[in-house]
């Protein structure tokens, strides 16, 4: 695309921030807001992946669907709050999109990477949970999986105490 003077327009750099309801995710969002909010040439996708428990954990599919609906509602509130934070930090409204995906029986990291490819973001931002080695072993680490599996994309793993307010 070109502007009215025939000069090619620079394509926005697209950043994807993967969030949930945790403080670590909030830290990742605030990092992006504080680090590049107000600069031109960026657009952002705030993504939340709802890891839906297996049907085996519920007495009926109806119960599971209700669980997903409730969780979905609270995540939509979080996404909207985070969208407002990015707007306040200087991102144009038109350059922020939010997305909520339900992952059925798939690792959260693979859903995030699938979405990253879909929107062609050049950077992926996640919070670091700061879990113990035992916890990482038994529950897995989304950020580790992203760091190991991401292609054509940089991954920023944000420490909750990174200093950006």
């Amino acid at each position, binding site marked *: 695309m070109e502007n009215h003077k025939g000069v090619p327009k620079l394509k926005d750099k697209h950043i994807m921030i993967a969030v949930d309801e945790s403080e670590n995710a909030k830290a990742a969002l605030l990092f992006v807001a504080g680090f590049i909010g107000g600069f031109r040439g960026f657009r952002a996708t705030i993504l939340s992946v709802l890891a839906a428990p*297996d049907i085996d954990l519920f007495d009926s599919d109806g119960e599971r669907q209700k669980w997903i609906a409730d969780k979905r509602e609270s995540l939509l509130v979080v996404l909207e709050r985070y969208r407002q934070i990015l707007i306040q930090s200087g991102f144009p409204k038109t350059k922020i999109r939010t997305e909520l995906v339900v992952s059925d029986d798939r690792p959260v*990291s693979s859903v995030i990477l699938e979405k990253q490819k879909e929107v062609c973001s050049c950077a992926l931002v996640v919070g670091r949970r700061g879990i113990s080695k035992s916890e990482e072993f038994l529950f897995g680490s989304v950020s580790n999986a992203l760091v190991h599996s991401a292609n054509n994309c940089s991954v920023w793993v944000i420490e909750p105490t990174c200093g950006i307010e």
Partner: protein
Amino acid sequence: MKKIAGSGYVGHTQQSLRDLASQWLEPSRIPKKFRIITDTSEFIRIDYDDIVILDNSPFLIRHNQKEGRFGMDDQPKFWVKSAIDLSDGSKKIIKLVFHERFQARIGDLLIDCVRSPLKEARILDLVQGHVNFMHGYPVQDTASNIVRVIDFIPGQTMADYAFADVIKHEEYFATSFPAILREYIEAVMAILFLHRHNEIHGDIRRDHLLRDATTNRLRWIDFDFAHGPNENKFVHDLFGLGNILMYIAGGRDITIQVLNDEMPHVRSSIAEDDFNIIFHNRIANLGKVFPYIPEALNRIFLHFSMGTTFYYDNTEELLDDLIRAADAVNRA
């Protein structure tokens, strides 16, 4: 899954049930009158000598099963009954529906768990005819409870089968362990079969692995545990497989207590990295305790140690290493 319509049984009378029971029981053991149950919801009230009728098949209840290793001693499991199938006299385990939600403690960590009759029913269908699993079938009672009718397996648990307390470990490792490892590899392949069908066992531990006394094959039992979401749903099973492997290689859990009591000379060489990544009182680096353990086998143990930087992502990786380690064990 079989579903029972209407009253749940047809054609059974007290007399016909007594006639059936008389084919399999001594006359003195046959009660005068049976209590007949078709809705098993109140499992705690189902007792000795009751008859549970499922899909028109009568089962004479004998007793409640007992809790395993992690339960309180001799605590009865009221939702698991041993029974006699009066249609053919075979011994069965009847697993009734107990909607239990709890947090299982694994080491210092808590994991959300539920007992899922649906999951166990699905896996029973999947593993029909597979020699390394318990067999049975799911059936709905008149209240739509998913009851599992399981064939009784005579034999020892892995905890008893691979126990090496009474003989010296080196002798156990040279004589018994190679065969036990071969059998165990077959059991790991069975778990891989589940994983390839996107199912997990959910509660892999040594008292859920029986050595069938009639076939001399290892068989996994009890698939009703389900867990909350995990970045890798197979990790719990992999961890269980690793723990059993270390148990059978050591002939028991080699804990810090064992070292202190029986091998104090080894204790000083054990570093923090040598302990089990979850059970911090168990030694994972068994090569330091038993130096004749081949390196290829000990490397597998180290994947489950505090010092590890590599985890197994899937059962194929573990199995590949196990097959190589078994070669090394046989050569040794």
